[in-house]
């Protein structure tokens, strides 16, 4: 489809603004996820350029281009936001801000929040002033949010929250939390509410979780008689499950894409280096050769499937639960990749701390990949969803 004159003007204007305002340093590719800007009260900018870039984009609302202007967004249409994204990509501009506020809480507030809640929270997300974390999982409610036990007792104009969350990403670096709490102990799914509160409230404490792969962004978070004002309830009392489900779909899409890891080194190249080729030019380890080829086939077919499902979604032909397939297969594929990478790496890839091994990067990434099929809904839960919602198999 050819662009209209109007849209061409829009594109030109955006490009000009980006060229004028995006610092050169922010047009370098990110060397790792460490280079991203997450914002918040505790944020230490990596450079003056990172700070400037966030301020300029935040001012225009282009950190969240499609949100309404009155809530700090850019007020752009979907098509306009796409142009912005294309132009940023073509100039190599980094995202000015990444955050759970943008990806998760924002969409939920836009759908379920009151006007006051939107006015209060969305602009601060857009400008990166407040960093949010998510309080869903609990030690005794992994895949099963319905059995969650963190209590919010009704005290008239406020709740008193007591309990414990786990897997709270970046809780120790965040300012506010969006959190599921139980407001009716007699019910299950229908006794849960969705509340917001400041992590600086007395009674909130966090403890980082060490994973089998080493340091992680995850925390345990404890609530001891935490006071939460009632105006911080999102959606209806006892209907927090609807808000949570809405958020989970977003999270699943986000994690599903993990199977696709274009930056990881090629398996066959790694194996060629360690195992070598035989006289016929084949990998000397024929078992490993067979496993790598199967993996590469499955990976290529999976990438095409990501593309196809996206196209189906656009054409309204995709079953909504196909995201469970992508999450399931992507996670299992990534685990296979790192099993094979570890195997190809041999004993060098078993080192844990040396500079030579980049502090055990292969071993740690291999171990970390095991979490892919657990976080954001286990593989078993995804298979349940496919069986029930797509195949329409009956029962439990």
């Amino acid at each position: 489809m050819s662009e209209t004159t109007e849209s061409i003007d829009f594109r030109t204007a955006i490009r000009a603004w980006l060229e004028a305002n995006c610092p050169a340093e922010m047009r370098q590719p990110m060397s790792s996820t460490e280079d991203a800007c997450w914002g918040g009260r505790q944020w230490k900018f990596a450079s003056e350029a990172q700070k400037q870039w966030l301020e300029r984009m935040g001012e225009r609302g282009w950190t969240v281009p499609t949100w309404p202007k009155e809530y700090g967004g850019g007020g752009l249409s979907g098509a306009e936001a796409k142009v912005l994204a294309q132009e940023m990509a073509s100039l190599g501009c980094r995202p000015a801000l990444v955050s759970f506020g943008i990806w998760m809480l924002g969409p939920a507030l836009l759908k379920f929040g009151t006007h006051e809640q939107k006015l209060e929270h969305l602009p601060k997300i857009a400008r990166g002033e407040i960093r949010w974390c998510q309080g869903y999982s609990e030690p005794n409610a992994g895949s099963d949010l319905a059995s969650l036990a963190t209590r919010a007792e009704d005290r008239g104009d406020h709740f008193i929250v007591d309990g414990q969350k786990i897997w709270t990403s970046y809780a120790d670096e965040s300012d506010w939390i969006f959190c599921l709490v139980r407001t009716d102990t007699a019910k299950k799914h229908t006794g849960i509410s969705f509340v917001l509160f400041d992590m600086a409230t007395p009674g909130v404490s966090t403890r980082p979780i060490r994973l089998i792969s080493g340091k992680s962004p995850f925390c345990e978070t404890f609530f001891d008689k935490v006071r939460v004002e009632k105006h911080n309830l999102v959606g209806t009392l006892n209907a927090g499950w609807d808000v949570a489900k809405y958020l989970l779909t977003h999270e699943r899409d986000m994690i599903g894409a993990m199977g696709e890891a274009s930056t990881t080194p090629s398996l066959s190249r790694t194996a060629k280096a360690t195992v070598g080729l035989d006289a016929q030019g084949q990998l000397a380890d024929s078992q490993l050769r067979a496993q790598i080829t199967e993996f590469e086939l499955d990976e290529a077919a999976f990438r095409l499937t990501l593309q196809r499902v996206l196209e189906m979604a656009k054409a309204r032909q995709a079953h909504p639960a196909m995201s469970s397939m992508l999450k399931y297969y992507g996670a299992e594929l990534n685990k296979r990749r790192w099993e094979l990478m570890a195997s190809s790496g041999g004993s060098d890839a078993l080192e844990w701390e040396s500079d030579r091994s980049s502090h055990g990067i292969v071993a740690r990434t291999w171990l970390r990949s095991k979490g892919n099929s657990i976080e954001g809904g286990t593989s078993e839960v995804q298979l349940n969803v496919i069986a029930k919602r797509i195949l329409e198999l009956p029962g439990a």
Partner: protein
Amino acid sequence: MSLILTEEQTMLRDSARDFLADKAPVTQLRQLRDTKDATGFSPALWQQFAEMGFSGVLVPEEFGGMGLGHVEAGVVMEQIGHQLSCSPFLASSISAVTALRHGGTEAQQQSWLPGLASAEAIATLAVDEKSKHQPAQIALRATPTPNGFTLNGAKTFVLDGHVADLLIVAARRAGEPGDSEGITLFLVDAKAPGVEIERTVMVDAHNAARMTFKDVQLGTDAVLGQVDAGWAPLSAALDAARAAAAAELLGLADEVFERTVNYLKERKQFGRVIGEFQGLQHRAAELYCELEITRSIVMHAQQELDARADGASRAVSMAKARAGRTATLAVQEAVQMHGGMGMTDEFEIGFFMKRARVLQELFGDANFHLDQLARQQGY
């Protein structure tokens, strides 16, 4: 290129589905088998393939065909997979037509393509000589004579060999088995002196034949493409046939999967519908994922064939390998989940398992194509 069907392709699929479900369902295959039918397919059906335009799907309009591509051919193949319909479509309309289009002179195309499109003639590819598909190992000898060539050797697993009018024979004019150079394709009249054809009854009750060539005399006009450079048109024809076989495997797998899921919803055991058991649910869900992921690569291979005649080998090998494995899993799970019923000949599931096995072997099994993929990547 988008990986979903266009509106036209969707219409083609629907009409192929309705037509084949009506005219060539599994009961027809059973009847052909049980009556030991001499032709091995319904000539009336084959005539209807022409009327529907299917047999000319890949033939250019100038030669009386529809001038469509491999995506469209695949759409028909998938529906054939659903019904296990018997016809020379794969051998004649896909593999032979592709060989003629890639290697044929104007005259050769003119003399064969219209007849193949109208289903008045049947052609097939004669490649394999041993039990496993290894096309570079071709040993059937083409010896130059003053007026052309003499062929000596044998072929096996030739689809529809006993009903074909035209055999496209891959022969070795130079080099040794193992070399891809030195292979030459020949157009051979199935009734030529010295050609002996034995129909082989196969596990899937579809047509295949063994043939021997004893001092078969050919003129120089029998050469398809260049002498000693038959590898390129042969590969093009094989790749087209492989992608088509992958599509049939996908359709077949879809069909058994659907039947199996329906069975899981009906069959009761231990007082519950067996589809309630999580063990079976998870296996069904895993199979669903395999099918969807295979669907993407099969369609991609067809698109690659349409986009670049010679460069589609990698995509085709991926599609054939993955479709073979997926269909094998699908039929295994189908028989197991159907329990004893799935083991009886009275039930149709067994027909799908048998056909899947033959298609898996045809033009290279998953192992062969995975090996090709590794070679292409230099390891």
